[in-house]
């Protein structure tokens, strides 16, 4: 089965630093998503991206967050100035064009903000 790949698997950063989490969605997918899971809490939607623009974002996705598809394969999440509460597992997901089709999730990047 095709896979969504995420790098790095674990990122440690100092509070206030910028981080970029990278994702390579499945090649023919057109919808891209970022979710996160704070330890012990539920999986939360952050943002969806289609046709080179954000289609929806949650309250969590404030001005400190941005997403980009810099080339035809990568989909990145940038946190401009990390806070302690940004520590979480961040999941990238993608899907094809059929409405309601399942999301394929990556294995996640564990972000630890010290």
């Amino acid at each position, binding site marked *: 089965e095709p896979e969504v790949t995420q790098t790095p698997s674990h990122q440690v950063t100092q509070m206030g630093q910028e981080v970029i989490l990278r994702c390579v969605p499945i090649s023919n997918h057109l919808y891209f*998503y970022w979710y996160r899971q704070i330890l012990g809490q*539920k*999986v939360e*939607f952050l943002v*969806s991206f289609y046709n080179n623009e954000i*289609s929806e974002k949650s309250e969590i996705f404030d001005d400190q967050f941005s997403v980009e598809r810099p080339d035809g394969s990568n989909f990145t999440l940038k946190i401009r100035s990390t806070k302690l509460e940004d520590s979480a597992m961040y999941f990238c997901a993608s899907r094809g064009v059929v*409405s309601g089709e399942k999301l394929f*999730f990556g294995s996640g990047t564990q972000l630890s903000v010290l």
Partner: protein
Amino acid sequence: AQSVSQHNHHVILSEAASLELGCNYSYGGTVNLFWYVQYPGQHLQLLLKYFSGDPLVKGIKGFEAEFIKSKFSFNLRKPSVQWSDTAEYFCAVNALAAGNKLTFGGGTRVLVKP
């Protein structure tokens, strides 16, 4: 806003016991329903999904779920669990009229004792 509720946060049972995990959602429109599983140290994986048709859905690894529209429920079941079913289970709902993101329940941690 749509919400997804999973009634049990933790379930402990012995091998060969039957498992049922509850999931209720609040959205009243047309919904697609999913159960995801996250094994220790691994990424989210799709167990099964419901889009339309037979409300009893069979998934991988012997799991099944039943969509009861009148109860806004999509409970997950397995007649006889194995130690390898130890994982966290997430119910998720995609309401098409509310955008194409998934909303996750809080998860249920299942521990199967050998």
